[in-house]
């Protein structure tokens, strides 16, 4: 922020970033209406980065990591946090420059700060996906994850998408210089804690103490069967299959937080989710191909 300027509220951070990226040709999408671990799992990322069609999209995604939950007691850790996700496909040559301008939209003038791009690669075994990139450090604070996707759903990508993920609570906390996430101003006079603290307590209790392990396991199996069933036949149902994989992934995360997964089982369960994600990715590309890759001429937005 500029000297003397008031730091942005969380809500302004969201609105400014969405407006900025919207003006850069991104379709402003909405969060996916399922529990996901990261914005990457949203079909607007996981599926859109596949195949040859260009796409630009930005959205906020509430992201759940049950094992990171801390009963609302740790000032830096949340079981559910907000990511602001941007996908630029293909990655434009000036993508780093665009990113720096997005900081200006937050009132940060890079000319008086230290901005560094430090190697940090990304991999998601459950999605069969990996990418190469950086964490962006602003005055020593990691505020963004920047990734060039190389593979998703086990498929080599061409063109390559750039993914920019802002961790919103951490960023707002840093900009507002708060010592607890719960003190971050959502808007002036309304702290984050007033909006979200109780969820964190309850979601932690559920994930660590209350969740019914047998039921979660049963549902994991059910959704696995259901997912593959969606992919059967001439005209597979791609979105329902992906949703099944996302549910499996979240069930797995809950079981893991609950301490119900043994070491050997762990690898096997991740592989089962990946298998469905990979099959879904393949079905999606075939489906788009049959449709003649409709976004190839003109782009998304």
């Amino acid at each position, binding site marked *: 922020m500029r000297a003397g300027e008031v730091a942005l509220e969380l809500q302004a951070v969201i609105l400014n970033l969405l407006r900025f990226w919207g003006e850069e040709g991104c379709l402003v999408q909405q969060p996916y209406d399922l529990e996901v671990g990261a914005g990457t799992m949203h079909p607007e990322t996981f599926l859109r980065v596949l195949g040859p069609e260009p796409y630009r999209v930005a959205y906020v995604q509430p992201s759940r990591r049950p094992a990171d939950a801390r009963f609302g007691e740790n000032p*830096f850790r949340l079981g559910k946090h907000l990511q602001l996700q941007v996908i630029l496909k293909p990655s434009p040559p000036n993508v780093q420059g665009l990113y*720096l301008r997005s900081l200006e939209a937050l009132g940060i003038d890079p000319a008086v700060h230290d901005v*560094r791009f430090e190697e940090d690669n990304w991999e998601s075994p459950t999605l069969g996906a990996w990418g190469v990139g*950086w964490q962006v450090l602003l005055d*020593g604070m990691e505020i963004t994850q920047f990734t*060039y996707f190389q593979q998703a759903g086990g498929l080599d990508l061409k*063109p390559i998408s750039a993914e920019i993920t802002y961790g919103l609570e951490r960023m707002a906390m840093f900009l507002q210089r708060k010592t607890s996430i719960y003190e971050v101003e959502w808007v002036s006079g309304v702290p984050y804690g007033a909006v979200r603290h109780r969820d964190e307590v309850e979601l932690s209790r559920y994930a660590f103490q209350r969740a019914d392990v047998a039921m979660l396991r049963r549902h994991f199996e059910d959704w696995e069967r259901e997912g593959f069933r969606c992919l059967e036949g001439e005209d597979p149902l791609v979105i329902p299959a992906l949703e099944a994989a996302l549910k499996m992934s979240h069930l797995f995360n809950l079981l893991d937080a609950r301490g119900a997964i043994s*070491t*050997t089982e762990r*690898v096997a369960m991740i592989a089962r989710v990946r298998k469905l994600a990979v099959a879904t990715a393949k079905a999606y590309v075939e489906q788009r191909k049959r449709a003649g890759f409709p976004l190839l001429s003109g782009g998304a937005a």
Partner: protein
Amino acid sequence: MNGKFLFELLCEEIPANALPAARQQLVSSLTEKLLEAGVTFSRILGFSTSRRLALWVEGLPSETPARVEEVLGPPASVAFAPDGSLTRAGEGFARAHGVAPEELQVVEGPKGRVVAAKKHIPGLALPDLLAHIVPAAVTGLHFPKTMRWGEGEYVFVRPVHRIVALWGLETLDQVVRFAIFGVASGASTLGHRVTHPGEVLLAGVQDLEDYTKRLRQAGVELDPGRRGELFRQRAEELAAAVGCRVREDRALEDEHVELVEYPGLVRGELDPAWLSLPEEVIVTTLRHHQKCLVLEKEGRVAPYFLAVCDRPDDPQGHVRRGNEWVAGARLADAHFFFHQDLALPLSATAEKLTRVAFHTQLGSFADKAQRLEALVVRLAESLGLRGLVEPLKTAARLAKADLATHMVGEFPELQGVMGGIYARHEGYGPEVWQAIAEQYVPAGQDGPIPQSITGALLGVADRLDTLAALFSVGEIPSGSKDPFALRRHALSVVRICGEFPLHLLLADAVSWASAPFGGGGVSELASFLRERERFFLETKGLPAPVADAVLTARWGLPADDLAVGQALATLWQTPEFMGLATAFKRVRNMVGKEGEGAWAPERLREPAEKALASKVAGLEQELAALAASKAWGQALQLLASLAEPLDRFFTDVLVMCPEAELRQARLGLLARIQRLFLQLADVSKLQVAN
């Protein structure tokens, strides 16, 4: 020879760990390609920053040397008519190669007599050569991880934005034209991304100094060596200003050099309340997340740190305040974890290890801890250290518990260290907490070994268990593939045994460690350890043939093996030992080929063999006594005293005589001598090298 060439590739931020190798490869690859073309030069230098790779070459000729090449053409019978005149085919060949008809020659080719033209190949202008070899050198660079971008046509370490390639004699005034990664070469680059974002024209650069100056004016310090110096100066200034010193961290300082285009540092202040955390926690927290150096006063961590930044200044104080906020937040987080961990006794934390995987086929760390307990007890008992059995049992049970703590979950590099701190906090004795703290020491190939005997024993037991476990499921390192760093683990076992020293018989220890896995892979593991011991002996300065002589005879007591080798190294090139090597080689060959016979001195009849037999019998006891007191030099001298009687034996006595019993007795004598030598060294190995 005053040609100069400048190459710069500007791209997005390159991983710090890839840069040193990239600079070096770029220089060696271009050097090789220039020499291949017959081009010499006075110097070549490689540079880099976080987002550029650069080369400077000077003292280049303006063209490659001209040369003559012989080109073979059609058979002589086709090129020449019977009257000796050229046929149309012959004329065509001469024309095609620009050679006058009378200059054609007839030579003997691989398929008979053919016409040949001596082609004079003129030199190639250097820019033309460079336009060819520079792209090959750049695209041939190896990086640990590469990527695609944009439309996905190109592969490199990061997306490439600019290529500068300039040639000139006095000044760099000619662009060497080529394109790589879809980017055409040009004459200008960009300055520092934030402080000087504009164009930097490089056409007209006169020398290396001029080039680096133009970049410096654009906020970029090109030379990593210079950045290192500036970092050190700045760090010392910033530390001295608050009466402190920089706590040395060479690896981190080297990394800083590669992280930036300009070597900036800011000093931040810590809330002194955080100094109640263990020093290891403070240092690791700041290092892990922010790559900060820590300041110290009188050897203790002081409430200051130095954060790297990619700019010379901090115009509005944002850089310092931002880093201070982050450091405070991270330490608060660490504080939270530290106290959460302390709330649960280590023995309860250890119960969580059933859920921490050691290896998919080898169960959990709880399983490993159980094996570790049994093994370390066995090692201690074999050394007669009964008094340490109880503390070692406790240490082994708790050794891996910190893997399930919050702190090590956050900072894996603190494994062992945290366990030690928590154990001390809970009131366990030093024999226990030091063992836990030192179990992973040494962390790398070098570095000090554990200071406590319980740490040494636990560390050896843990690594032997890891080695035996992974060998039993076929995870044996081969070539450059060693994903579990088993070579390093094995070397640490040898180093600890050799340097502490521990008088453990590694051959026995390997079989104990392998027992829980049904003994699979024992012999492979034994020879693997022996090879690491060879490396150990050689790093201690033993000549390769001496190390070989020792290890062929004995291995697995690295301290003694080293002492024997050191004694041998002072003797092996004396004439006496060289003669002994030859004689012992005959002993080994004969026993190896004809068998060990049977010891029956009463059957021997020649004076030379009787003399040898009586000498041997007397020697055995003496040698045993010297070995027991580890007087290896004297023991070797004693063996050397066999040189003369052995020589006489081989001169006077025919071992392979017709009488079977006598022959067996003579072989029996030689076999006994062989056993005697092999308690110390197979000196026959020294013969070849002499």
